[in-house]
């Protein structure tokens, strides 16, 4: 209807007739008012973007429904856009797409591959943390040596990686041909994982119509787990990767696929379903499990070498110390064994403290200071002694020496009044006592010194008495010299007065050997 409404500009309005003009306007308002408002609203809907967007949004769902009912045109025209969106999302967050498009896989793959490795990874991480001091020292040295910033070295060395599993998969069927794992890694079901990896690969390539080139490789990220997939003509080689391996490893994978395909071409195409024919590929696949020997990357293996070196030198030092300690220990034991009057009953050698139990004759040399003389520090060796009597000739002799000396010194040789004549029997008695003492002294390595002290009683003059005492001593020495006295040295000492009418002895010892 609005199209038929005459416009005010073309309407014949009588000139100067303001009243009629107003009447026309009134008429128009009455006639077309509601439509005009609608037209204004429509115009603003068309011209205002946000208004328009709101309007489209209101009808879009039913419009799409209607369109899909009519035919596939809308789907066809929207597909490229949807694909672009998915492709973008996939680029930014592949895991998200895998989880939404193949929800069953994300969790399963993670369960099959990731969990089994967790314990192992924890162990490795712990070891890394523990070795941190030796490692950081080594890095500091390297930074200093190369002139690179320390942080750069740390970054480079911290890029740990490990190829944990290798799957050789038949590309068309998704069947597992061979599966190898790094030492310490466990997997649940390689058959399932093989199938799922293939499905993911197919999904990615089918969805975006990217042809799978023969030498192409893809990276699939599922959680913290990364899988490198290397395509061959008939086989896939999938490597479960942890960390950030050098990209050269991809070339290694490509090489292995090529090799396997060349050798097994006839068994891959077609594949009869018997995986045992691929058993010989094991060594080649194992060669991709890089880090077999140095699983935790080169840097860390060097740390281990350093730690190993330190441990080895510590061991060596300990061995040297032990040996040295053993030498002085043996020295101590030998000196104890050679010590007369000491019997070693028990010797316990510890890492630091040593203990010795012994029996010691009271006459034996004191044991204090013996460990120190063997080279031990203070309080390193505890020496306990119990008493005992040694039957060693020397100790027997020493034990005899004292009583014999006392016997000798108690001996009195009597003389007649005012006489210096020695009675022969008395002389023999004196000689026997001297001999007994002197032989004991000899047995203990000493010489007996016997002083013969003459004396006179108080009768008679002092002068006479002095002479008499000296004469008696000299006479006795002369008389005793006729008898065997076991090397005793006899000295006639000065006389004494006012004591007895006779001779007595004073015994002493002197070391032998200085004659």
């Amino acid at each position, binding site marked *: 209807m609005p199209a038929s409404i005459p416009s005010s500009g073309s309407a014949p309005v009588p000139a100067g007739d303001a009243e009629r003009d107003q009447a026309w306007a009134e008429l128009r308002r009455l006639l077309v008012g509601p439509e005009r408002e609608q037209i204004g609203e429509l115009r603003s809907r068309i011209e205002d973007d946000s208004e328009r967007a709101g309007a489209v949004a209101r009808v879009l769902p039913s419009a799409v429904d209607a369109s899909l009912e009519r035919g596939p045109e809308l789907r066809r025209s929207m597909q490229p856009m949807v694909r672009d969106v998915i492709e973008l999302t996939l680029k930014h967050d592949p895991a998200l797409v895998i989880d939404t498009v193949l929800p069953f896989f994300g969790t399963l793959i993670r369960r099959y591959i990731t969990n089994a490795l967790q314990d192992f990874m924890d162990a490795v991480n712990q070891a890394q943390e523990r070795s941190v001091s030796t490692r950081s020292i080594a890095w500091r040295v390297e930074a200093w040596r190369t002139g690179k910033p320390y942080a750069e070295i740390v970054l480079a060395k911290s890029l740990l990686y490990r190829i944990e599993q290798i799957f050789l998969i038949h590309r068309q069927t998704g069947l597992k041909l061979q599966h190898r794992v790094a030492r310490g890694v466990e997997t649940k079901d390689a*058959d399932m994982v093989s199938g799922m990896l293939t499905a993911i690969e*197919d999904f990615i390539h089918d969805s975006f119509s990217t042809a799978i080139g023969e030498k192409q490789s893809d990276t699939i990220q599922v959680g913290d787990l990364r899988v490198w997939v290397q395509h061959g003509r008939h086989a896939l080689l999938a490597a479960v990767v942890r960390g950030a391996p050098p990209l050269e490893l991809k070339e290694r994978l490509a090489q292995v696929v090529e090799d396997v395909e060349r050798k097994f071409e006839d068994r891959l195409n077609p594949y009869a379903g018997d995986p045992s024919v691929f058993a010989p590929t094991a060594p080649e696949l194992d060669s991709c499990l890089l880090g077999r020997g140095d699983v935790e990357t080169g840097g860390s293996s060097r740390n281990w070498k350093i730690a190993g070196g330190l441990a080895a030198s510590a061991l060596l030092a300990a061995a040297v110390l032990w040996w040295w300690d053993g030498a002085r220990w043996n020295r101590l034991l030998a000196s104890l064994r050679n010590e007369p009057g000491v019997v070693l009953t028990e010797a316990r050698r510890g890492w630091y403290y040593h203990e010795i139990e012994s029996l010691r004759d009271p006459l034996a040399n004191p044991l204090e200071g013996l460990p120190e003389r063997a080279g031990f520090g203070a309080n390193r060796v505890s020496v306990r002694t119990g008493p005992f009597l040694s039957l060693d000739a020397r100790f027997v002799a020493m034990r005899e020496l004292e009583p014999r000396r006392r016997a000798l010194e108690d001996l009195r040789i009597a003389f007649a009044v005012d006489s210096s004549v020695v009675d022969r029997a008395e002389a023999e008695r004196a000689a026997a006592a001297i001999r007994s003492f002197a032989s004991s002294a000899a047995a203990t390595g000493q010489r007996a010194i016997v002083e013969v002290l003459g004396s006179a009683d108080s009768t008679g003059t002092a002068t006479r008495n002095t002479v008499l005492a000296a004469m008696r001593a000299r006479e006795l020495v002369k008389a005793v010299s006729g008898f065997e006295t076991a090397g005793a040295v006899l000295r006639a000492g000065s006389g004494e007065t006012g004591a007895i009418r006779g001779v007595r002895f004073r015994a002493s010892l002197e070391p032998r050997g200085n004659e």
Partner: protein
Amino acid sequence: MIVQKKICLLGAYAVGKTSLIRRFVERMFDERYFTTVGVRIDKKELSLDGHDVTMMVWDLAGEDDVTRVDLRRCKGASGLVFVADGCRAHTLETAVRLAAEAEAFAGSVPCVLAVNKVDLAAEWEVEESRLDDLAARGWKIVRTSAKTGHNVDPMFETLAREMLPGAD
């Protein structure tokens, strides 16, 4: 000797593909319906006539008004199971059509047609005459129930026997 084979299950949505596999692999059944998104893969090891067969069973999302079955997933399969719901006659026609389309991807491999939910006799919709007609055209038809387990193992085993080396 162990032989590995890939098989696929195809059909309309909610006909019981996932349920049949669950019954076959885990010996379980769930009344609840969780539609399959994308693909599921399961594994079943069985011993047949002296052969050890490892079956990798691919469960493809069913076809509905919006989603077509992704037939590319059938490539490399050694056998196909087409599943229909006996209580929804049109799902039988979907299965027959999918069979024709799948050949382009899987080649001519052994097939079996599972008409499922046979336990729901009261709601049965599929005409016996239609099944006879298909059987006459060479279809191997098995009436199954994932719920009771009826004919489930025989259905998979029939297919497996045909895939084994030496079978035609």
